[in-house]
């Protein structure tokens, strides 16, 4: 598992394609909204929350697609499957590399978004990294599983969003609600946060168990 993670990070260090394209896309989405919305709308926590998650979902989609396209070149994914590594471990390695890349993107995008929106600082904002991480974990687990299915199809660029977006709805609603509560300085550890955690657990376990069946030709 660590060998795959090491290889993915090394490939990114060498090409710098993935993180840079994710950052540009996420920042562009946020800038478009900042210019489109009025200052009054921008100061509403619900807008800020939605904006953060829209940027994350689109950047995440690009990241996950890129992860498997790299493996398809020279059919390297088959090389990976030849190795005496349990498919569950392959899933964990791809999942962890996605979490790493999206966490880097969020570490830049989230503070910048808060600054651009001009939201006041509150103590509850300290919980934001944890909520973003929970969202990234759920997104990466489900995304890795769906991308492994989609990458073998001819219209993979279309199939992945078609499969992934409807399944992400519970995560998206929970994450937007929890983030909105955080930005408004309210209690955020209620039902929505528990749904977020449950989503993470369900799809990390599903991915780990089902990956072997998904990658089998």
């Amino acid at each position: 598992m660590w060998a795959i993670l090491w290889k993915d990070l090394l490939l990114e260090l060498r090409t710098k394609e993935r993180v840079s394209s994710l950052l540009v896309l996420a920042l562009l989405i946020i800038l478009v909204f900042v210019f489109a919305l009025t200052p009054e709308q921008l100061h509403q926590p619900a807008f800020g929350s939605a904006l953060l998650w829209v940027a994350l979902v689109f950047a995440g989609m690009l990241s996950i697609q890129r992860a498997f396209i790299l493996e398809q070149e020279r059919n390297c994914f088959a090389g990976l499957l030849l190795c005496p590594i349990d498919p569950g471990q392959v899933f964990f390695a791809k999942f962890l590399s996605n979490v790493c890349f999206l966490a880097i993107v969020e570490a830049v995008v989230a503070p910048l978004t808060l600054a651009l929106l001009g939201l006041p600082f509150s103590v509850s904002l300290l919980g934001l990294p944890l909520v973003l991480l929970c969202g990234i974990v759920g997104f990466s687990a489900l995304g890795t599983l769906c991308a492994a299915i989609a990458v073998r199809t001819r219209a993979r660029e279309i199939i992945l969003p078609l499969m992934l977006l409807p399944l992400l709805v519970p995560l998206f609603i929970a994450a937007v609600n929890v983030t909105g509560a955080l930005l408004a300085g309210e209690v955020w550890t209620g039902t929505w946060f528990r749904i977020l955690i449950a989503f993470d657990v369900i799809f990390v376990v599903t991915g780990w168990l089902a990956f072997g069946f998904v990658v089998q030709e």
Partner: protein
Amino acid sequence: MTQPTQQTSWVVEARNLRKTFAWTPVLNDISCRIAPAEVVGIFGPNGAGKTTLLRLLATLLTPTAGRLTLFGFASSELTVRRKIGFLGHESYLYPDLTPEENLTFYGKAYQVPNLKDRIAQQLESVGLQDWRTMPVRYFSRGMEQRLSLARALLHAPDLFLLDEPDAGLDPRGLSTLHATLAQAKDRGKTVMLTSHDFERSRELCTRALILHRGRIAWQSDAALPSPQEFIEFYTAYTR
């Protein structure tokens, strides 16, 4: 570690193997036994099922029906993968990584001991030690094929599965390949290779078989036929 399903000395034991893709049969009723240290040449026209057979043996595909054991283990066991070295039509090399990095990745995945020394040895054996720090993206087809051979043999497998290994190789690459396979044969490794060139493969092979329309149409006995005889068999059995 899982125990072998049966006490056996066969490296490959296939019984009535069948593989279909989208209800189209590609391999049908394949039964064969390969003993240690055999070098088996698989011949046949395009679309005969040679690549599919090797991919099945490499555990990249699962049979639709039939039974396949490798080293006495069911082919679905992870353990058998450590004993297999597969060279396919594609190199399985990451173009943005250097040969050293590619081999380090595969070496770590196979848990190869003394990895640095082993990589240096493999790169030298395929004549790529001077290109060890250049990304694979800039390699010619032949250089990539040589590196792919180094990748397939990095973990010192006991069964070599080589799908048209001579494709794209220059004379130097061909002699490297032949030297490597001759060495493997001397060390008692089992080799299965597909080829369209019987005359060249004859020097290495101890057995030959012809696949046609997904079935084993002919296989040699202990003595290999002469190239002329082989052409006659090939023509007769692939009609």
